[in-house]
């Protein structure tokens, strides 16, 4: 399945009588990347599960309007990022608590999360990442864990490459400071 390019899969989707099948191939190709991207933002597995499903449903609803001049994966990442940010926004408005309290709550859930298998130092790193502002945190995760190119990140996050480099630089310095203390 992995041998199909995005263009081939999209062509198959457009021409196919059974669009559900061809979309299913796209889901299978990108589900892990998208899930982990979302999971690093929302932390909790159940939340990530909801957001990843919403992401693919939104992709299904808008795929007819997808323009070929953009890369499919950056388009999908953009939807996933926006869905994750909106999810956290809803969480904040639901709790009627401040931004930092949500991050503290995510931090606390890390300790109790049965699906977090990292060691002590990895837990410390994750907690350090959660101290970053939301956008900076997303940039750090995308660069440090996912290795996404700045050019693609610029498309996904609708930001300039220079701003992304600066953001990553600041994030690394902050985290290094926390790890050193």
């Amino acid at each position, binding site marked *: 399945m992995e041998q199909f390019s995005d263009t081939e899969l999209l062509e198959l989707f457009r021409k196919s009588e059974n669009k559900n099948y061809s979309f299913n191939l796209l*889901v299978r190709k990108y589900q892990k990347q998208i899930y982990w991207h979302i999971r690093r933002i929302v932390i909790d597995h159940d939340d990530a599960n909801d957001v990843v499903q919403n992401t693919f449903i939104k992709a299904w609803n808008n795929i007819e309007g997808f323009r070929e001049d953009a890369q499919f994966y950056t388009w999908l990442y953009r939807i996933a990022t926006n869905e994750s940010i909106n999810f956290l926004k809803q969480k904040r408005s639901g709790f009627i608590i401040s931004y930092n309290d949500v991050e503290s709550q995510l931090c606390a859930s890390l300790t109790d999360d049965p699906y977090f298998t990292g060691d002590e130092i990895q837990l410390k790193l994750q907690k350090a990442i959660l101290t970053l502002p939301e956008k900076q945190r997303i940039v750090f995760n995308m660069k440090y864990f996912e290795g996404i190119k700045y050019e693609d990140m610029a498309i996904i996050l609708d930001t300039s490459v220079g701003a992304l480099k600066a953001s990553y630089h600041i994030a690394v310095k902050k985290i290094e400071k926390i790890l050193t203390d």
Partner: protein
Amino acid sequence: MKKENQIPDNFENRLDEFAPNLFSIKNDNPFEVPADYFDSLPEKIASKIIATKKENSFAAKFRIIFNPKIYIPVAASILIVVFLIFKSTGIKTRSDQQMAYTANDNSAEYQYADSLIENGDIDESMLLETLTGIDDTSKNGNGNSGIEKNIRDMNKSTIIVSDSLKNLKVTDDDIIQYLLDNDDNDDLINN
């Protein structure tokens, strides 16, 4: 002057130099998912898409039915049609009825009245009496105007007379027999 926050060239590939503690931590994924999660996820998404499609189609129908852009013109059209039907089928006000009787000179009633006047069966004074009676009757509150009642009465008598004439068959023998039975002419001659 070198800025404090100036980004070193190729910073992201030189973390060992600029962030040794971070560099010492493996960037492995510390999270896990339940067993077989990724095997079942595409089916979950597919079933959710189908459910969403059904919801959307229902919502679309609901929106069509209750869309003000549709139901307001439809309601307006119905009102116009109902108004036109009422207007054309004679559901009229009292003034409309009176106007109709005075304006429509070709109606059967008026033709009959004209013929009565022409034949001398009714004169203008009787007609005036009839019309004067209209207002008095129309004020009695029984819902029927005087002209309606008078014309209806006239119509009734006309129908009775004309029906009886239609049924009457007079032959020559009948006339001869009538003259024999009523032999008054002799008296007239004698006188």
